[in-house]
């Protein structure tokens, strides 16, 4: 379960050494935009050194690498794949070929380092119009793809429109990405809300993302983590109902009944699936995400 994905700059020891106590289910250690070109080497060595030392913190680690049209991405992977992060985040992914390119190199490195094949997953960052249109092909490009993330800031620049707090300009992109991800059976995460002081705006934005089907939301501020976690967590009422559904189903099986109702409503497959998801989230909420 990932409700929050918190971006942490890859060249800031002060933030890196505390990433596991900030409350996020996942952290995205950033080697891209948060690091100046002159410090790329320094950041990837620092991230590798931190990960080798910290071991399993219970907080999932994702590493955002530099775009494949730069000289940096292969060196990024060479340093961090040996630490077995849960996923690598390639940026500005416009089509399935970029995913394949990154997946192939991760595969080479896993072999070189003696890591079981498929250990390191991929979460493509979709932040261009081309990427949004190719979302389904990207989601299904490789078995390493476990989730996708929408990047609203770069996307709106590419769309040549203004990024607003209401987010009407990215409504289509959000819907298309959710549909593409769900069609491929993977998770999908929403873009960060960038006004770190507007908590009301954050809550509205996160609630909208949840209502559209996103699995969780990324953040650039530790101060946003608690609110996002709360919004993407099932309520106690939802948890109780989910257990009631599963208990009713079990009882019906024991009695040999084919069709059952709860609170006057027939329990069908979608309701059972939803109940299972809620119970999975309830179980995961107390243990972070490790795959």
């Amino acid at each position, binding site marked *: 379960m990932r409700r929050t994905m918190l971006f942490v700059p890859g060249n*800031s*020891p*002060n933030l890196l*050494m505390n990433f596991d106590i900030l409350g996020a289910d996942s952290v995205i250690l950033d080697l891209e935009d948060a690091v100046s070109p002159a410090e790329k*080497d*320094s950041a990837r*060595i*620092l991230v*590798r*050194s*931190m990960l*080798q*030392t*910290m071991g399993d913190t219970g907080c999932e680690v994702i590493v955002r690498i530099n775009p494949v049209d730069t000289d940096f991405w292969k060196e990024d992977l060479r340093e961090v794949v040996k630490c077995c992060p849960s996923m690598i985040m390639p940026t500005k992914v416009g089509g399935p070929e970029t995913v394949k390119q990154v997946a192939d190199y991760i595969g080479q490195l896993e072999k070189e380092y003696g890591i079981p094949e498929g250990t390191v997953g991929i979460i493509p960052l979709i932040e261009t119009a081309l990427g949004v249109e190719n979302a389904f092909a990207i989601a299904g490009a490789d078995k390493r793809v476990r989730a996708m993330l929408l990047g609203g800031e770069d996307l709106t620049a590419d769309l040549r429109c203004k990024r607003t707090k209401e987010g009407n300009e990215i409504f289509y992109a959000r819907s298309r990405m959710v549909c593409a991800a769900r069609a491929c059976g993977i998770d999908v995460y929403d873009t960060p809300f960038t006004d770190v002081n507007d908590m009301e705006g954050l809550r509205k934005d996160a609630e909208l993302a949840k209502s559209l089907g996103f699995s969780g939301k990324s953040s650039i501020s530790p101060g946003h983590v608690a609110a996002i976690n709360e919004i993407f967590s099932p309520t106690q009422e939802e948890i109780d109902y989910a257990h009631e559904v599963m208990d009713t189903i079990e009882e019906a099986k024991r009695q040999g009944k084919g069709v059952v109702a709860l609170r006057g409503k027939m329990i069908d497959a979608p309701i059972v699936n939803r109940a299972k998801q809620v119970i999975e989230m309830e179980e995961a909420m107390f243990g972070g995400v490790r795959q």
Partner: protein
Amino acid sequence: MEIKKTATAGTLESSDAYVVAEPFDTLEVDLTSVVYEQFKDEIISQVKAVTDALGVSKAKITINDRGAVDCVIRARVETALKRAGGEM
């Protein structure tokens, strides 16, 4: 690895270390630290571990430590040495 030029890594921010590596006839470590009295030996041993791993036997390494943990010290020394050795 041969140290060919002077190079730096890190910052003077809290929890970081600023490292200068430069050519020298022997291996010398000059350490300034906010926790010098408590952790001098530990920090020097971290630096030695990096020089041994990279095969550096001649260099002057100047460290201004601002309370960095071991893995940060190692990372900053490694970066400075690789930059000074022309590997980056």
